[in-house]
C-alpha cells in the first residue's frame, strides 16, 4: 500500500531537500517505486539536488490546474529507474496550490507508487501545511541547535493537529532525523546531544546524519548522497534510515567523532 511521507522541519536550511533526495533514492535503490514532490513553490530546489533541473517542462501547479497531466510532469531519474520527481513551479505564487488539487494528485499517485515523499518548504504557511496535509508518516528534520529544536516541536504539534489523519482522530507516524550532527562538539558539550534532542522532542529516532563534506559534494554534482558515494558515512546513515522506514529494526548509532590534532596531542578521548 502506498505511503505518503512528508519531510518537514519548520526551520529552513536544516536539510529537508537533501534528506528527501537521499531517502527517496535509498528507497528506490531498495526496489521501491518512489516519487518525490517539491512543495516549495517559487523556490524549487529538489530538481537541482537530483540533477534534473534541465529536464523540467511541466510542474506540480500545471497538473493541479489541469494544464498538463501527471505523466507529462513526472520526471524519471536517469540513474534510478524507480525514482521519479514532480517538480515545483518556479514562477507561480504559492496560492496556486489548493488543498483539493493537492489531494486529487496525491490520490492519483497513491495508485502508481509505493512511496510519495513530500519535500516541505520551510515555515508554517500554506505550502508547509499542504505538504503535511495528506501524510501518513512524517520525517522531522532537526539540527542539534536551539532554534531548530523549537521549530521541530512546533511542527510536531501541527502534525498532531492539522493533518487529515489527525482530524480523523488517527496519528501521523513521526520520525526524527537529526542532521549536521557533530559528535566531537556534542561530546565537548558545545552542541545539544542526541539524548538532549530526543528527550525534548520525545519522538522516535529515524537516524543521525553526521556533518559531512560528502553531503555538499553530492549536491554540487546533482546526485542524492546515497547514490554519489554509497559508502560514505552520511550515505550509510541515510540508507539505514530508509531501511527503518521499511520496517527494519536497526539500532541507531551515534556517529563516531574524528579526532582532531589537538585531541590526539592532548590524548583527549572523543566520546
Amino acid at each position, binding site marked *: 500500500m502506498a505511503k505518503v511521507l512528508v519531510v518537514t522541519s519548520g526551520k529552513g536550511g536544516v536539510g529537508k531537500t537533501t534528506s528527501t533526495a537521499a531517502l527517496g533514492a535509498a528507497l528506490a535503490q531498495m526496489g521501491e517505486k518512489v516519487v518525490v514532490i517539491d512543495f516549495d513553490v517559487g523556490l524549487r530546489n529538489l530538481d537541482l539536488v537530483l540533477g534534473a533541473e534541465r529536464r523540467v517542462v511541466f510542474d506540480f501547479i500545471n497538473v493541479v490546474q489541469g494544464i498538463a497531466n501527471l505523466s507529462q510532469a513526472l520526471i524519471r531519474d536517469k540513474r534510478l529507474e524507480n525514482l521519479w520527481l514532480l517538480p515545483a513551479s518556479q514562477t507561480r505564487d504559492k496560492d496556486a496550490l489548493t488543498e483539493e488539487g493537492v489531494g486529487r494528485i496525491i490520490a492519483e499517485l497513491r495508485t502508481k507508487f509505493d512511496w510519495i515523499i513530500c519535500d516541505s518548504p520551510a515555515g508554517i504557511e500554506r505550502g508547509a501545511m499542504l505538504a503535511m496535509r495528506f501524510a501518513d508518516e512524517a520525517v522531522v528534520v532537526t539540527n542539534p541547535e536551539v532554534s531548530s529544536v523549537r521549530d521541530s516541536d512546533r511542527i510536531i*504539534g501541527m502534525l498532531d493537529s492539522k493533518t487529515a489523519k489527525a482530524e480523523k482522530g488517527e496519528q501521523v507516524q513521526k520520525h526524527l532525523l537529526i542532521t549536521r550532527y557533530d559528535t566531537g562538539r556534542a561530546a565537548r558539550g558545545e552542541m545539544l546531544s542526541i539524548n*538532549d534532542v530526543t528527550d525534548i522532542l520525545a519522538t522516535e529516532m529515524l537516524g543521525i546524519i553526521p556533518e559531512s563534506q560528502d553531503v555538499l559534494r553530492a549536491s554540487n554534482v546533482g546526485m542524492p548522497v546515497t547514490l554519489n558515494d554509497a559508502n560514505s558515512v552520511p550515505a550509510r546513515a541515510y540508507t539505514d534510515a530508509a531501511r527503518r522506514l521499511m520496517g527494519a529494526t536497526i539500532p541507531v548509532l551515534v556517529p563516531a567523532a574524528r579526532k582532531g590534532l589537538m585531541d590526539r596531542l592532548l590524548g583527549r578521548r572523543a566520546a
Partner: protein
Amino acid sequence: MINFPRLFGGRTASAPVARERLQILLAHERGLCGQPELLELLRSEILAVVSRHVTLDAEKVRVTMDRGNLVSMLEIDIEVPNSAEGWAVAS
C-alpha cells in the same frame, strides 16, 4: 591574558544551557495547546472584568501559565494602585 582553561579544552559547556532554555520555553509553548492567543485572551478579559470596578493600568496585569506533570498553574498578577481614586468604581 591567556585563557588557560580554554587552551586546555576545559571550556564551559554551553549545551546544558541550551537544553534548559529549550525545556522551559517548550513547556510554556506546549501548555498553550495550540492556542497561542489563549493567554492574551485571558489577560484582556480579566483586565476588562476587573476594570469595571477598579481603575487599572493595563500594563500591570500579568497572566502566566506554569505547566507541571499533573496540573498546571495559571497565575494572575494584578497590580492595583493604593490611591483612593484607584479603588473608585468606574461605572
